[in-house]
């Protein structure tokens, strides 16, 4: 399973498999410059492959206050 945490809402999503970051962003309806896609200490560009497992965090870039 690929587990995806949307930090802004705390929502957790699971996907059986994801081809790429672009596919993940499309599934979530997000633009690539709207969020950081974080895996461990690393940022993933849209062309990166994801596969069947892993933990990913989605961080919105819009600043508050």
């Amino acid at each position, binding site marked *: 399973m690929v587990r995806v945490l949307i930090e802004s809402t705390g929502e957790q999503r699971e996907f059986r498999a994801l081809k790429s970051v672009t596919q993940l962003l499309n599934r979530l309806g997000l*633009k*690539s410059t709207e969020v*950081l896609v974080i895996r461990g200490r690393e*940022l993933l*560009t849209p062309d990166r492959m994801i596969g069947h497992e892993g933990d990913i965090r989605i*961080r919105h870039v819009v*600043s*508050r*206050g």
Partner: protein
Amino acid sequence: MKCRRCSELAQVRLPSHHTGFCASCFETYFLRQVERGIHEHKQFSKEDRLLLAVSGGKDSLGLLLALSKLEYDVTALHIDLGIPVSSQSARSTVEAYCAAHSIKLHVLETTEKGLPIPEVKKRVNRPICSVCGKIKRHWFNRFAYENGYNVLATGHNLDDEVARLFANTLRWDQAYLAGQGPVSPAEGRFVRKVKPLCRLTEYETAVWCFLNGIEHVLAACPYSAGASFTGHKKLLADLEERSPGMKMQFYEHFLQRGKPAFQAIRAEAPPLNECARCGYPSSMEVCGVCRIKEQLEA
């Protein structure tokens, strides 16, 4: 995707520059863009006494780090608004951050100045964020002026500037369009105001913060009903996606071609008065902040 500079695996893709960077080349890129914004617009130099308004949000902390890496003489000023939970959280974040990085910090409490924000909210019958913003701007400037800082910097980025420009344009607000930009010159008791992140987007700033371990999430202000210009930012993001680089172009062309025209129109506008109570510039006899204070004292 590979880094354009060193061919390592890229971590950041920047469509507006048709490029991508690894973490360490992104650091170089980011600092260069900050420097370029500062020089291009003659914002300040290493000789200036620079005060940075630090809210505790990522933009201001990220900018503080960038300016100290670039070896500017920068001091931070945090304004404690006296709002339960969120103000404590913001203040302790800023204090811990400045202590860890050996950055000089001042904290000013609005309560001490007779303006605790929860009290202001109770007594003033206007949207609290515009009143709160007015109070913060007044005290940032006044603190700088009274303490010998000649330049006041804020963490506004390109997206903030473009969204504001878009809003001002929708209203064709001549006064604001004449004054908007990365530098507002000193005038009377107004110190020079600058925006060193004017060439960097929200996305780039978030990347910078992530790569530098600035991850603290602040407790949200209980009065925030969504950040300002959120709707405009969405629209502009759609445009940017269709034509990468459009935001920067809109802003730069405004500065080159639009702003001078509005400045010419406004050249005849009457100069600001000095507030009869505090002496700081105002278009009225008594400035907005002194009027709020009087309302609270009544």
